[in-house]
């Protein structure tokens, strides 16, 4: 099977599951499909840095969490009729997605810019660990910062609103997330096939040669990292809305690890890799969890088999298209 056809099949399944949930009266399927979609968006973000740019970030939980907290904090202020800032000028909270999204994107992009500026001085394993260090700083800060619940997290009770849509309806919210996923995939496909994408992939393979033709690899990589953080931050905002809740656990290194595992499991530097990875991981977690209490053992075993015998992740295995990465 060609990867292109396989991708279409993936989209078909992703759309079929919530509809099946509606028909079979199993609304939980819709929740699961939405979760897969949101985590896939986070993965698409990470894939941009990790897959195409070779920037293995072990700290994307920072952006996921910052996006999530931006959405959560602003919405909670609106729900409590408690302005965010009264002086020097009044800033009210809002539950309007059209305002929350850009803010989540911009603020997580800003964090990505700062972290990227400092982290890109290193490379290889050092880059992996310095990104982890920044995420851990934010994690410990969030746990001990009392204003927004600390480790207890922050409940927002109601999903934020979108003009003309009832976002509390599971299928509608799934639709919103799905559109964002398609947009993120389209964006990263455009990016990677552009001159910028070529420069990015070239600087992954040989930074010296790229520099020789007059492109600054640092600048290219920084832009990719910021964009990557922004997309992951948006996913975090959507995740807060899915759960109507945000807590420091989204900032923990487990989240960074999980997003990375979705990307690797699906297939690194493949457009739909994160979607396939997230879907496979969550379906395994759900089905194994229903069968045995020791499901993590079997999950581990299956993951090892996938790594050992499926080069290029699940997509690589199923499409038999091996690439030299």
């Amino acid at each position, binding site marked *: 099977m060609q990867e292109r056809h396989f991708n279409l099949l993936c989209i078909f399944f992703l759309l079929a599951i919530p509809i099946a949930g509606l028909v079979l009266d199993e609304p*939980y399927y819709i929740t699961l499909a939405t979760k897969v979609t949101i985590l896939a968006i986070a993965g698409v973000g990470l894939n941009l840095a990790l897959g195409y740019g070779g920037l293995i970030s072990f700290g994307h939980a920072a952006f996921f969490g910052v996006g999530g907290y931006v959405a959560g904090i602003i919405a909670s202020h609106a729900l409590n009729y408690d302005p965010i800032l009264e002086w020097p000028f009044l800033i009210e909270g809002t539950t309007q997605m059209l305002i929350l999204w850009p803010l989540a994107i911009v603020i997580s992009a800003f964090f990505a810019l700062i972290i990227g500026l400092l982290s890109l001085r290193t490379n290889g394993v050092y880059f992996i660990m310095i990104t982890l260090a920044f995420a851990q700083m934010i994690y410990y800060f969030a746990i001990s910062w009392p204003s927004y619940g600390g480790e207890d997290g922050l409940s927002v009770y109601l999903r934020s609103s979108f003009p003309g849509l009832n976002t509390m309806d599971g299928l509608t919210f799934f639709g919103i997330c799905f559109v964002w996923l398609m947009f993120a995939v389209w964006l990263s496909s455009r990016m990677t096939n552009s001159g910028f994408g070529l420069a990015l992939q070239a600087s992954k393979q040989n930074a010296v040669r790229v520099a020789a033709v007059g492109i600054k690899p640092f600048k290219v990589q920084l832009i990719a990292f910021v964009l990557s953080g922004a997309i992951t931050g948006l996913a975090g905002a959507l995740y807060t809305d899915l759960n109507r809740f945000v807590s420091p656990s989204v900032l923990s290194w487990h989240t960074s690890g999980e997003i990375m595992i979705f990307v690797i499991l699906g297939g690194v530097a493949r457009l739909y890799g994160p979607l396939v990875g997230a879907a496979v991981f969550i379906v395994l977690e759900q089905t194994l969890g229903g069968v045995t209490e020791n499901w993590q053992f079997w999950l581990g075993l299956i993951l090892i088999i996938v790594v050992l015998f499926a080069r290029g992740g699940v997509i690589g295995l199923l499409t038999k298209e091996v690439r030299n990465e």
Partner: protein
Amino acid sequence: MLKKLTQLAAATAMITTPVFADEAKVKVGMITTLSGGGSGLGIDVRDGFMLAVKGNDSIEVVVEDDQRKPDIAVQLADKMIQSEKVDVLTGIIWSNLAMAVVPAAVNQGKFYLSPNAGPSALAGKGCHKNYFNVAWQNDNLHEAAGGYANSTGYKNSFILAPNYPAGKDALTGYKRFFEGDLAGEVYTKLGQKDYAAEIAQIRASDADSIFFFLPGGMGIAFMKQLAQSGIDLPVVGPAFSFDQGILQAVGDAALGVKNTSQWSKDIDNAANNKFVADFQAEYGRLPSLYASQGYDTANLLISAMDKAGVSDADAFRAALKAADFASTRGDFAFDKNHHPIQDIYVREVIKEGDVLTNKIVAVGLENRSNAYVDECKM
């Protein structure tokens, strides 16, 4: 906010119209921690609950593992409510998970019976008619420790807890009742296992007693290291670091330590004697306070089902409120914010043969309710 919450309740009531096949039956969704660190607590709550409902055909229990992750717990609650269509939710161990799940669940018209976590937010302003706490309000055991410290004559305590909301509640709870001075007040990193720095500070202080709240492995590590340090000060803490599950891991370092609990296996009443014997026969281990809480939660539920059908929410709520069941703790009643009024005991760690366990030595606080009743508008 209240207005929006009612809108939410109305909106979700339309989405999830419950279908009751059998009036007398109740479907229970249990979300608890069964894998990874801290799973011992969830397993105890589940086993205690299951022991009480064993052979009871009118209760169906669906159990799911939350992995101690709040986001997973929220999604499982959605599953329980939307797909499994449960009537009652229970099982959550950790306060942060309870804060994530409970407000949304009770606002969708479900009953939530808490077998362990009792964050102050849900006892005060965030109280809800469908939320019942069958264990304790989080501050209770710490308050009793403070009360006990007064009656024993401690004048200068060194107190420590992890730097997160439950840790701050713990120290606040102790200080609420303790009348002496503080030789030191330290917040440690959540999950920290090495307490050399804190123990050195205790040694350098002129404290006459130590109060600590360090749940799970943190408490095991602290007790062992304290025993090694040669500091010979009386230690008092809540039962969480001295429950049956982890006491063996602390070892003899725990002997003689006073800890506060609303339950102990030597409380002498028919319900408790039966519970301790049945639990040992069924699972081959001594029950912990978590197991007793799971057991009491199930018995509360059964007592309410005998009086009213769950589809008649008002009658069922009144039946729960009456708390007309034989608790393993003896006297048990709900205050108006649906949290227990109960005695909190002081226990001492002793050895029965080779097994470390607890024995009641005093009553810390009698008929204690909680500090947040007046904040609850219900």
